[in-house]
């Protein structure tokens, strides 16, 4: 756990380059930012601006081509994939645009997954609690195909929170939902951020959603523009 004065998450001069069919492609170039514990932080930008790539790097799903990223005091680029997986399990939760629930599992079993990875015996009870918290206690035996888009995303949020992560990454969490449902899901995310002091980093192109965050940055063609939201 970092000191209050220290950022929980920090990127310094981060670049990401890939080789494509037409040669070298710079997806991100010279991105620096810092997010403190308990903050809600938005990354906004047009499609193809590099938002998702940046989110993947910040969450330790990938490593930068240059620069460094610290999460909870750990330099991610210095860690191998196994160590990063460990760190993710302890500190990180995810919410995706297309929910990414396993279709063969019930809502409850989907929520149990992170706890099972930790080998916890109380996985089922805690998953039940988490589902109750997002208002889906009664639907815990339903499979994803039997749930609406909003309900699926609420299950995904329960899964993201169930093991008490320090930081929650959300990639366009309302992108696949209608306005009203999207607003409810966003309310849920911010309520959890507020109640549990879980840091929230979200990628969105929805200006309204970004505006609800305490701070944020805008990406334009892989580079940081002016802060999107004033601190």
């Amino acid at each position, binding site marked *: 756990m970092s000191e209050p004065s220290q950022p929980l998450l920090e990127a310094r001069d981060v670049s990401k380059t890939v080789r494509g069919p037409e040669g070298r492609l710079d997806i991100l170039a010279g991105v620096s930012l810092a997010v403190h514990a308990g903050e809600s932080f938005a990354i906004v930008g047009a499609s193809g601006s590099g938002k*998702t790539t940046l*989110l*993947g790097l910040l*969450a330790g*799903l*990938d490593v930068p081509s240059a620069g460094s990223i610290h999460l909870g005091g750990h330099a991610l680029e210095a860690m191998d*994939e*196994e160590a990063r*997986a*460990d*760190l*993710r*399990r*302890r500190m*990180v939760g*995810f919410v*995706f*645009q*297309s929910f*990414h629930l*396993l279709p*063969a*599992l019930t809502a409850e*079993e989907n929520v149990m*997954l*992170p706890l*099972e*990875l*930790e*080998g916890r*015996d109380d996985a089922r009870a805690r998953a039940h609690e988490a589902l109750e918290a997002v208002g889906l206690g009664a639907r815990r035996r339903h499979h994803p*195909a*039997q749930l609406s888009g909003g309900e699926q995303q609420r299950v995904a949020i329960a*899964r993201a929170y169930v093991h008490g992560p320090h930081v929650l990454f959300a*990639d*366009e969490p309302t*992108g696949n939902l209608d306005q009203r449902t999207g607003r409810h899901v966003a309310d849920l995310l911010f309520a959890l951020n507020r109640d549990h002091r879980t840091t929230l980093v979200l990628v969105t192109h929805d200006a309204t959603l970004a505006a609800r965050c305490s701070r944020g940055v805008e990406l334009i063609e892989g580079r940081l523009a002016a802060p999107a939201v004033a601190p």
Partner: protein
Amino acid sequence: MKLLRLALRTLRREWHLAELRTLAASLLLAVVALGVVATLASRVERGLLASAAELIGGDAGLSAPQALPQAYADEARRRELAVTRSARFPSVAFAGERGQLLDVDAVDRAWPLRGVLELAAHGSSTIGHGPAPGTVYLDHRALVALGLAVGQRVQVGGQQLTIAAELVREPDGGELVAMAPRAVMNLADAQRAGLLGVGSRAGHQLLVAGAPAAVDGWLAWAKAHPLPQGARLVTTEQTQERMRSAFDRAGAFLRLTALLSALLAGVAIALAAQRYARRKTPEIALLRALGTARGRVIGLLVATLAALAVPMALLGVLLALGVAEGAWRLAGTQLVHVPTTLPLLPALGAAAMGLAVLAGFALPPLARLAEVPPVAVFRASMVRRMRRVDTLYLVPALVALALIWSQSGSAKLAGILAASLLGVAVVAALLALLLLWLARRIAPGAHPALRLGLAALARRRALSTVQATALSLGLVALLLLAVVAPALLDGWRRELPADTPNWFALNLQDDQRADFTQRLQQLGARELNMLPLAMGKLTSINGTPVDRLHFADPRAKDWVDRQLRLSWTGTLPPSNRVIAGQWVGAQPPRAEVSIDTMWRDMFGLKLGDRMRFDVGEGTLDATVASVRQVDWSSFRVNFFLLLDPAHASGLPHTWLASFYLPRGHAEALAQLSRDYGNLSLVDVDALLDRVREIVGQVGGAVRWVLAFSLLAGALVLAAALATSAAERRHEAALLRTLGARRGQLRLAAACEFALLGLIAGLTSALGAAGAGWWLGRAVFRLDGFMPPLAPLAGAALLSAVVIMLLGLAGTRRVTRTSPMRLLREQ
């Protein structure tokens, strides 16, 4: 045309899809496996027929009680066939004081055209042809009986001949009852000595050999003309009954192998098609939403599949022919020496069957695509869920049944196999469900990674059950072939037990029986069995003389002309089974006869028919009381006609004794033969050796075919594991994102596949044991056959380990999936 072009374009675009490649590979594999097996089976069968030719000494021929007209030889030569003539007759040979009745083959220098004439002289053995004029070959028994050695002279038919070599083995038509020791002399010598003239007891033979088409042509020509009196055609198919039974069993083994390969291919195709259909669902929904008619969607799908299948099937044919040719060359040393040409038809038939399998097994999932509603473009869940009972799923079952029937050629074998496979499928599904239920019960207390693996398996219940069932079916086929088939083969080999009677004594008189029995017992003979033997003729049936009766079966006439061997006993002999009527018993009120099935069919006899036999000076009228099924491969003394002892024992008769005597008693037996001058001793050992040798050859051939089926099975296994690969990759990416370590994923996968393997291994071992037990009894008639349980259990465990390792190898890439994949899949 437009549709075809669109289909080709679709295929080009989709060729990178793993499931489409799997589909293509499965079809290719199916055609190659079916084609290789069918081509090899066809060649092996031809090779075995050639083996039969070796026994006859030629590819076909004609035998008659008198010399055969020159026209037959001329016609054969006109067709560029080799021709040989021979005659067989009994003759007494003399050497000094000693005389011995011999079975003499008088042959020309070209004899034999097929098979091997093995000779021994001065300590070395050679392969030879008919003896030169003035020389003779004698077998060991004749040499011992006459007290002669190679190089000495013997008198046959009044001529002094030099013994050029000892006769070790000759093509003898697989005759069991060789009446006496054997000799082979020159045909011209026999003619000069007047041994073949009018009134002689010689049987004449003309044999031909050459290209199969020319032989068939000659046979057709011979059949088209009236045969000389008493003549009959000799073909490879008409070799001795027990030989034919051996070939039939070999054929059943080969067909079984081909059949199981086909079904394995079907399983692979079904799995790949299911995966392809799943992938195509959103695309079809989109096409339908954009206004494409259902018929056109299906047309495009069928055209795409056809564009894929036809070239693959043709490639399969080429590969099958290549592999079959290579395998034949490699196996050639194990098989017969007669070369056969590469047959094309079986491979083309395999391509047709492969396409049928593709159509049949791919149909249910692909046809389901026709029902994808346009609205599914919005929600995947709107695709109609699979119905539990669906007539479409009868299609692969029907295709499988048709394949089983066409390949087995026997409704009984087809029924047993279909029932076994269905049984295995049901048991596999039930066992899988049970074990998955157990896994769910033990999961909460297990190690976290283990629990994750078990939970994953238990949660993917439907898929796990389908996979376990498919793997079980594949494995049961492999186990049947790898473990049960060799055991059946061994059982079949053992069916001729070591103490099978290896000597027959003919012509024993009533007053010699007691003394002869005592002498044999002193020599250490076992399994002594004596039956009376009377020689007679069938003279009338139901009061009508047989020469006034017309029989549809040409063999009947032949039997009517012959002296028949009649015997009687109060107890049903072993290897005989009454299939109609009542066994005659010892004391029926009137004379009764029991006939074997061949006689029933040949003469159209039924229970209650009256048969009159002339035996010596007397006659006997007997009523048909029962029909017997005789196992002619048992090497016991068997008779087509068995009378009741109460009425037959008064007929003039001698005794026929069969017994087992370990080798190394030739001298003692020769003495016995001299002491009982009237006695003919027959050595069955030589023939038994020949049968064992042929069984060995068949075994070698089956093993070769088996190797290809095993390969097919292993590849199908890989295809089955690939079906869930995409889902696994997605799952792995998610678990990695949530922080799962690679080791956790690997351990979870290991647990999952080990359990899957255990279910499949256990089920298939049970299935193979059951099917093997059933096949052994019902088809191969091996009473008391017990499938090898320990090797089956071992194989089941090994299967579990192999499936686990294969699963781990197949999911190695999955555990390395980058978690970024999830974000990219948005």
